[in-house]
């Protein structure tokens, strides 16, 4: 598969009054043309910041990209001047944000907000743009699309607003769509509808999608590949099936273990990972997860594990992957104690 996006050793820091927060600490991954990948991790692990870096939308100050590159279609976006980035945003790469309640301008009609992207990136006439906006609303499956065009965000439901966001994001047929927690702010029933829509539109348009979420249930049916982030780094990545069936990293097992299950009996308490993510102002030496890891060894607190993997593309950054580690590759069984 040809690579569309390739992020290499990306580091993003934010300066705060408490010190320099290392939000993203050397993330590398790639996304193929038309591929659907998921970036998973708990709040504050740097997944959204990674996405904003791709868009060139890191608020600066206080944030800045310290090093690394973001190659999109062969060009490094980090080095691109702002003017050039403006032409890419919304056209080649677009993003759907988490909260459709606040991500739409309250004083502009849905139709105008969609038309705005179109008129920014094309030279079509007003009528053509209006027709396109209507077409897009139909595409995202909104009822009474003609009426919705003239409505303001507050007159639409949460699900409809997210559909408008999706219509906006897909307006210029982007090659890469970043969906940053697109369903987190919505009701569960609407969540499923929105994910179905994204899935369907991806099939129809062939757009590559990076789905950012902390909800593993959302990932399973959508992404071909999953990347797990912890404390600003990738800790595991692999084909969705493999990763769910046999997670390599104790953190991933912990995440999978703390998903509530319908088929488990109600008297068992929901499992969680003890402890809290580390302070990213002064991240711990070695593996960032070791203080919370039930499998931690001496080496974990001393040296950082490299990403190592097998031929299927399933890899993890964990010392247990080392051939000399005890219980090599038997992580998930032990993790379930």
């Amino acid at each position, binding site marked *: 598969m040809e690579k569309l996006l390739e992020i290499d050793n990306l580091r993003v820091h934010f300066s705060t009054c408490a010190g320099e927060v290392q939000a993203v600490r050397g993330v590398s991954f790639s996304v193929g043309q038309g591929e659907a990948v998921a970036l998973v991790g708990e709040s504050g692990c740097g997944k959204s910041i990674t996405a904003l870096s791709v*868009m060139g*939308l890191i608020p600066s100050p206080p944030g800045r990209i310290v090093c690394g590159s973001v190659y999109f279609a062969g060009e490094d976006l980090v080095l691109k001047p*702002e*003017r050039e980035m*403006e*032409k*890419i*945003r*919304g*056209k080649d790469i*677009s*993003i759907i*944000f988490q*909260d459709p309640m*606040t*991500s*739409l*301008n*309250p*004083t*502009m*009609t849905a139709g105008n907000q969609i038309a*705005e*992207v179109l008129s*920014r*990136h094309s030279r079509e006439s007003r009528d053509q743009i209006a027709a396109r906006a209507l077409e897009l609303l139909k595409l995202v499956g909104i009822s009474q699309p003609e009426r919705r065009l003239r409505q*303001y965000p*507050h*007159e639409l439901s949460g699900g409809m607003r997210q559909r408008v*966001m999706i219509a*906006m994001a897909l307006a210029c047929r982007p090659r890469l769509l970043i969906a940053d927690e697109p369903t987190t702010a919505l009701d569960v029933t609407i969540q499923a509808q929105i994910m179905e829509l994204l899935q369907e539109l991806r099939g129809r348009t062939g757009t590559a999608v990076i789905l950012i979420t902390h909800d593993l249930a959302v990932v399973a049916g959508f992404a071909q590949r999953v990347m797990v982030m912890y404390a600003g780094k990738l800790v595991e990545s692999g084909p969705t099936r493999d990763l769910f069936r046999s997670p390599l990293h104790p953190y991933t097992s912990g995440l999978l273990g703390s998903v509530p299950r319908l088929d488990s009996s109600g008297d068992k308490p929901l499992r969680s990972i003890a402890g809290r993510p580390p302070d990213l102002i002064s991240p711990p030496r070695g593996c960032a997860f070791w203080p919370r890891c039930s499998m931690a060894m001496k080496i974990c607190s001393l040296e950082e594990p490299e990403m190592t993997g097998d031929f299927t593309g399933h890899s993890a950054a964990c010392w247990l992957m080392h051939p000399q580690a005890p219980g090599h590759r038997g992580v998930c069984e032990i993790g379930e104690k």
Partner: protein
Amino acid sequence: MARYILRRLATMLAALWLIITLTFTIMHIAPGGPFASEKKLPPAILDNINARYHFNDPLWKQYTDYLGNLLQGDLGPSFKYENRTVNGIIKDGFPVSATLGCLAISLAILVGLPAGIISALRRNRWPDYLSMFLANLGFSVPGFILAGLLMYVLAYRLDLLPPAMWGTPRQAVMPALALSALPMAFLARLMRSSMLEVLGQDYMRTARAKGLSERLAVWRHAVRNAITPVISYLGTLVATIFTGSFVVENIFAIPGLGRYYVASIGDRDYTVILGVTIFYAAFLMLMNFLVDLAYMFIDPRVRLVDRKEV
């Protein structure tokens, strides 16, 4: 919509009636009368005057007579200025006050809003510090002190502008400046904080994510959202300008309505006090009403609330 407007008009009339009644009562409770300060008159003549102006009638009759005349649009004669009616005073004075007021409001908006926007965009850099310093100054220096300072520096020391009176454009500069300082400062600060709030909103990030340039994002998305609280202040702004103009008109010897109004209170010029009060009250209520209407056009969310209400 039509029902909303009708209801608002009805409330305004009720409020106006209340204001008339209150003013009438307070005015008559206050000691003295229109002719108390004149030199001692023989009782027979005083009786004549009182009869001429119906001061011998019981108060309730004076009150109902006044209301009756008011309904016909007649605010009565002035007790102080011979051969002048209150209608005439308003007709002469109001255009002057209105001109001055409009100048001051335009100045406040044209300078205050851009200053606030620039402050917000250049937050914590020198343009922000400069305009906020000036705004705080304009905020804390009362209009009459500013008027005096302007007169001293621009007219007396530098001899750039005529010190007082009304008629030429040059004479309007200083009073308009003095009058607009406070609302200008207020508008700048209001616009700044409102812009800062809007700039941090998620939809601004969405606007940037669409590929809009910083400038377009600010103009199309930020300013319109940030301006709504400012619009709601405009009603108050008009009131601030008019109360401010009482002082400024006195200082610069401008024959506006404010000057007559202030003088009429000292003179116990009953009809002028009442007439001008009614006029101002009606005018301010009308302004507030227009602002509310404008608000509905700018912020679509207000429209919805209204539709539910009606």
